[in-house]
Structure formats: structure tokens, C-alpha cells
């Protein structure tokens, strides 16, 4: 399997756990990368927190279930969950088909924007992916 079938957008930040973050003003949108969805296989269920929940960096905020296994989702930044992607309830396969767009998972209002500096940019993430194979 190729390292990535879709390019990792250069305007996003990435974690070693294969989450991505898009910062738009005060809101950080979070999802998983194309590499991650490819490794998981067909996604059949996504368990997400309620809006208003607080999440902290590096801890589990939800679970993504593929046909074969359940995998934790880790918060790339700390903060309050302002929105969750309700479309994933009935169309969890959006995580496979559009991981960087309609397959997004939660929006967070970051409590410490300095945490964003700790994330990788697209080229560092791609270098990191090369070390996994």
C-alpha cells in the first residue's frame, strides 16, 4: 500500500497519532489523516464526545471502529469541544472517502494555542510516515 493516496494538505498540522488540525480563527477542526484511514480500513462507527466536553492534548477524545478493530482518537490540542460531525453517525465511511474534508470529527476551542506549535507541518508528517515503513 502506498504511503499516501491523497496529499496531506499543507495548511494543516499533524500528530504522530495521525490526527490533523485545521486552525480557523479560534476554532481547531480535527480529523484523521488519509494514511490513518487507509491503515484502519472500512470505518463503520465513530464515537465522539458531546459538544461542551473538554479534551486535553494527547488523551483519548473518541474511538473510531473499523470492521476489524477499535482505535482511540487522541486530542491534538486541549480545549472545549464546540461541535461534532453529526454526519458520521449515518455515514461513517466519510472518514474513508474524505478524511480531510467531510470526514472531520470534532471542533475544539483551544485553551492554549502554544500547543499548536508542537504539531508537525505537512512535510514533517510525510517524513515521519516514511519512518513507519
Amino acid at each position, binding site marked *: *500500500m502506498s504511503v499516501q493516496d491523497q496529499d496531506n494538505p499543507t495548511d494543516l498540522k499533524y500528530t504522530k497519532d495521525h490526527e490533523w488540525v485545521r486552525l480557523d480563527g479560534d476554532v481547531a477542526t480535527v480529523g484523521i489523516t488519509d494514511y490513518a484511514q487507509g491503515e484502519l*480500513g*472500512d470505518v*463503520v462507527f465513530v464515537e465522539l464526545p458531546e459538544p461542551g466536553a473538554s479534551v486535553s492534548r494527547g488523551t483519548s477524545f473518541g474511538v473510531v471502529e473499523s470492521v476489524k*478493530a*477499535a482505535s482511540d482518537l487522541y486530542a491534538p490540542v486541549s480545549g472545549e469541544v464546540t461541535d461534532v460531525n453529526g454526519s458520521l453517525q449515518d455515514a461513517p465511511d466519510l472518514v474513508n472517502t474524505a478524511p480531510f474534508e467531510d470526514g472531520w470529527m470534532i471542533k475544539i476551542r483551544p485553551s492554549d494555542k502554544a500547543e499548536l506549535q508542537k504539531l508537525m507541518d505537512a512535510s514533517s508528517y510525510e517524513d515521519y510516515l516514511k519512518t513507519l515503513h
Partner: protein
Amino acid sequence: MVQVAEQPAQPGVTAAQRAEHSPVALQKTPLHQVHVDLGARMVPFGGWDMPVQFPTGVLAEHHAVRERAGLFDIGHMGQLNFDGPDALEFLQWVTTHDVSRLKVGAAQYSLLCNEGGTVIDDIIVYRLAETRYLMIVNASNTDADCVWLEQQLKHPGRGVNPDNVLLRRVSPQQTLLALQGPQATAVLRRVAKDDPGELANYHAMESTVAGIPAVVARTGYTGERGYEIGFDGAHAALIWNALLEAGREEGIIPCGLGARDTLRLEAGMALYGHELTDLVNPYEAKLDRVVRHEKGDFLGAVALRRIQETGPQRRLVGIELIDRGVPRPDYPILADGKPVGTLTSGGPSPTLKKSIGMGLVPVPYTAEGTEVQIEIRGKPHAARVVPLPFYKRMSPSQRGKA
């Protein structure tokens, strides 16, 4: 007389355990390179490096088998030949079903049980000729089954003379493919010498496929109409490609162990190591129909008779999740607020679009409609007991009406 092609497993260590610690020890079927070239994701299974899915993915492979046709490499499964004048009586001794009911060309699902009446393996026994039988066993149990059968052959019951039984392991040199799905017959008809449409369920014939001598059996592990095809592994790529080519119009695709598992779960079929283990007896696993006391003495008969008389304490049930979530093997089953068992299998049902599982629960909780909960990551999720199988294929006439 015993010839076992490979060294028996190290005592106390299963092939799977050895493989886990030493990836180089994984065995490969004759189609291994074909799978790698197709871009399959390979995983260790029962000591073998097997495709869990092809680039199409588990869901597409699952639906292909339910709607059209899918092709599986099952060359990891063990194949044992029993030949000779006492082969029938030896099989009567070591298996639970009544082998004397098999006419030449017929097959039966059966079990190997120990003296305590618990399950060593679940198997299929074919009668290929007057005194020649083929036993298909689980990949992960093949080494242990061979050792166990050799031991049984040293001092068999039922008056068997060990010199009158030749036990030979013929896998992996002899390999197996499974062609499954409503279009399987149409696909196979294009490359088989004899019409597979003539085969009754659980029957086999010696024929040729793509010109290669093969045993074609109407058996499978998907709940769909289909065939298992056995032949010399030297021809594996030729037959694999011929079947994919023959089924192009029908939309046949290669399928991996991921789809094999979701398909068998929907069909309510047991998987050794999950529903069946050496801590489970056939009555608990609802396999009463393959324990035939009327045939006379066999291994485990005394213990099994006792269990049959008192009734098992727990039984296998189908469970459907009502709340959203995905049940997995080993998740606790709760009833009346307390744990009553664990799931033996579980996952999404791509055909029914539900979450389903199987598990052993005490008899008072086995009635259809019983409300239970499945504990998922510490949280109880509403579920109920439903009849098995979850999915039953429609006959062609029902399909016509639908």
C-alpha cells in the same frame, strides 16, 4: 502407519504463538506472492501469513460474496487423508458424527472431542472413495490435531487395527480455494469439466478445473452457495487466475480473511478459538446435531451422554445490539445488572446493517428476546438475544419473488 509431512509443533506452544514471536516462522500458501502482488494486506493467522483484505476492502469483499461471487485462498487449512479398510471405524472413533452415513462423494461437518467431551477441533469429513476419507481441519490446530490423531491411532477403540489405517497429511502441498456467492456456480461452470450445478450441498466430486485435476465440493464458510476446490498447490496461481478471469462478467473479486469472518458471523457459524475451544462442549455450542450416540462408542461419548442427559449449563446465543456501537470478542455480556458471559465473536453485519455477536450465556438467558447489555469500554449498551443464524440466504425461487 502414520506419515506426517511436517515436524509436529513444539510441545505446549501453538503454531500461532511461535509465529507471533518469530515472524520468519510464518508459513505461506502457494498463492502468497499472488496476494502480495495484488496489494493485499497480509496478517499472521494460525501460523500463516494470510491476506486479511485486498485493496477493495472488507466491506466490498463481503458484499461481493452476498451479491455476486468472491474467491478466497484457504490453503492454510489442514488436510488429512485417511485410507484403508479400517479408516471408517477409526473416524467413527475419533469424530462425533456418524461417518457410516456418508456415501461416496458426501461430506459432513463434525467435531473432534476429547474424553471430557470438550472440542479439540471442528472439521469437515469427506468420503472420497470406498475406503478413502479427507478431513479438513483448522489451520491453527493442524499440528496439534496430527499429534493427537497419531496418538489415538496407537490404541484406537471400536476394534480398529492401526495397520489398517494410513493417516497422511496432504496439506499444504494439496491446497484449497473457496469460490462463494450466488454466481459461484455460473463462474465455476465455465472452467470445470463437470457441471458443479449438479452437486448437492455437502457433496463433492473429482473433476478438473482449468484442466487441472481437482476435488470440487459444495461447501463453504459464508452462508452463501459456493464451492471449495482442492488440488495440487503447484497449480494454485493458474486456477486462481482462471477463476477470476471466468468470473469477470459477474464481478468476482479476491476476498481476504476479514470478509470471511464477517460472512461466517452473519451465518452464525462457529470459529475455533472463539465459539469452540477445549473448554466448550458441543451442546453448549448448539452442535447437538453432529453428536450421534446411536453410532456406538466414540471418544468423549460417555462425558457427552452425561451432558446431554443433564443439559448444558450455558448455550451459545446470537446477540443484536440495540444501542449504537460495535461489539467485539471478549466484551462482557450483562443481564440483571451482572456479568453472565462474554462475547465469543462480534462486529458489524454489513448485510443487515446492524451490530451483532455470539456468546455463551447461562440457559435462563438464552430465550429469544431476552434483554441483555454488552459492556463496551466500561459502558453497558442495550442488546437482545436473537435467533441464529443472523443471515439466511434466499433460495433462487425466493430471490425470484423478491
